[in-house]
């Protein structure tokens, strides 16, 4: 209910601002909705949105699985941490734009280059978060698992993984927002479809309603994924914790 109220407030501010500034710079909500409907009925909205979502999904899964594995290793094995740390610092501080441009130069304007570039941008934050998680693992529970001779997989699944779950959730959430942002840049620079490409076109034509139509649809999809996927996962991973007052 409160969420709905806050959303209505956002719409109201937008509308008032549109009336004050004028339609060319900031089109009113109905004007944007009209473009949305037109783009949706022609099918191109879904095409571009689908292309972007596919890239996000691939890059996200790639970066999360690789980053979690490396981060876990670095948190558990001192040698891996020593070896990996300089690379990690380099990757963390490398601007996204540099990675994307280099990927396109080296691998061509290909799908693989785009997805790899997005994944590389997300990778170091996933590593850092999971490394912290692995460092914070409770050694007394490890000992318990070892005394009771739990097989490795069972110990990992029931002893280690639940301890890492909050870190995975945090990494997924921050990672998803990072990937959302970077995917559009990668598309703008070197892909013939996707929301980023459409925004590039709208920018060249100074077509603000089209720009807003695409970015707001995209934002809505992000919101839906956040509420339907990320939050339930977090709630499930934390169900054993006593409720906060």
């Amino acid at each position, binding site marked *: 209910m409160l969420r709905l109220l806050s959303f209505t407030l956002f719409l109201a501010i937008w509308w008032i601002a549109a009336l004050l500034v004028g339609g060319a710079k900031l089109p009113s909500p109905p004007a944007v909705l009209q473009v949305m409907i037109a783009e949706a009925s022609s099918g191109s909205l879904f095409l571009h949105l689908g292309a972007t979502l596919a890239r996000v999904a691939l890059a996200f899964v790639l970066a999360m699985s690789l980053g979690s594995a490396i981060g876990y290793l670095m948190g558990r094995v001192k040698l891996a941490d020593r070896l990996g740390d300089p690379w990690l610092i380099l990757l963390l501080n490398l601007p996204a734009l540099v990675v994307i441009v280099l990927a396109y130069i080296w691998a061509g304007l290909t799908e693989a280059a785009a997805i790899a570039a997005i994944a590389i941008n997300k990778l170091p934050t996933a590593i850092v978060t999971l490394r912290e998680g692995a460092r914070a693992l409770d050694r007394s529970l490890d000992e318990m698992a070892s*005394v009771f001779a739990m097989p490795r997989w069972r110990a990992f699944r029931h002893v280690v993984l639940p301890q890492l779950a909050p870190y995975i959730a945090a990494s997924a959430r921050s990672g998803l927002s990072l990937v959302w942002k970077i995917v559009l840049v990668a598309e703008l620079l070197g892909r013939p479809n996707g929301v980023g490409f459409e925004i590039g076109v709208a920018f060249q034509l100074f077509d603000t309603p089209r720009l807003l139509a695409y970015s707001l649809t995209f934002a809505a999809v992000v919101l839906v994924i956040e509420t339907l996927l990320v939050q339930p996962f977090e709630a499930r991973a934390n169900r*054993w*914790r006593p409720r906060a007052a």
Partner: protein
Amino acid sequence: MRLEVEISGKTFRSAAGGTHEVLAPVKFALQSGEVGVLIGPSGCGKSTMLRIILGLDHDFAGRIARPPQARIGMVFQEPRLLPWRSVEQNVRLAAPDISDAKLSELFRILELEAHRSHFPGELSLGLARRVALARAFAVEPDLLVLDEPLASLDDALAGRLRDEIATLVGSRAVTTLLVTHSLDDAVRLGDRLFFLSPRPARILAEVPIAIPREARADAEIAAIKAGLARRIQGEQGDERAGRDVS
């Protein structure tokens, strides 16, 4: 199974760089089905000794002989339950082969039936300790290790829990090692008592109790304790004289 412990020393390197001797040479053995009790002052190195016996610490001089396939049931000083798994899951994860009937029986003895689906965070310390006991017994261990399982419980509860341990230990022959600083627990549960010195720990006295556990009524226990108290006082007197502690 028979447990043989022969530790010739254990030193611990502190962060400041100095070395501390935690264990002096310690040698003892437990026969199959025997309940051994380690009694000693706090911080004397009992937990270190247990970690070595359990195979959690390999950095020591000496040897531990136990069958490599021996199943171990352990009750740690703090319950060490998985907070994200229910009581029943905690037990089943340690003992995946346990039958439903056996599990129910165990929960009945330890009065945990009502708490099967609770998470450890919802339990009192006394209940959590009972879950840890249930988990240790559920694996049907060849070697049962109890590290101060009754510490920080009130007397009434500790007494009941001790009787429950006695019942469970009596129900099948399991070589048991109990660590405690309560002489009462030691005399009620043990077959063979080992009195440890302050750090670095060594065995001051090994006292077998000949009367079977079931036959020890309050009168016998009081008599054993009185005998032990005299003996300990005598030895501590020697110790003081020998060491010239100021």
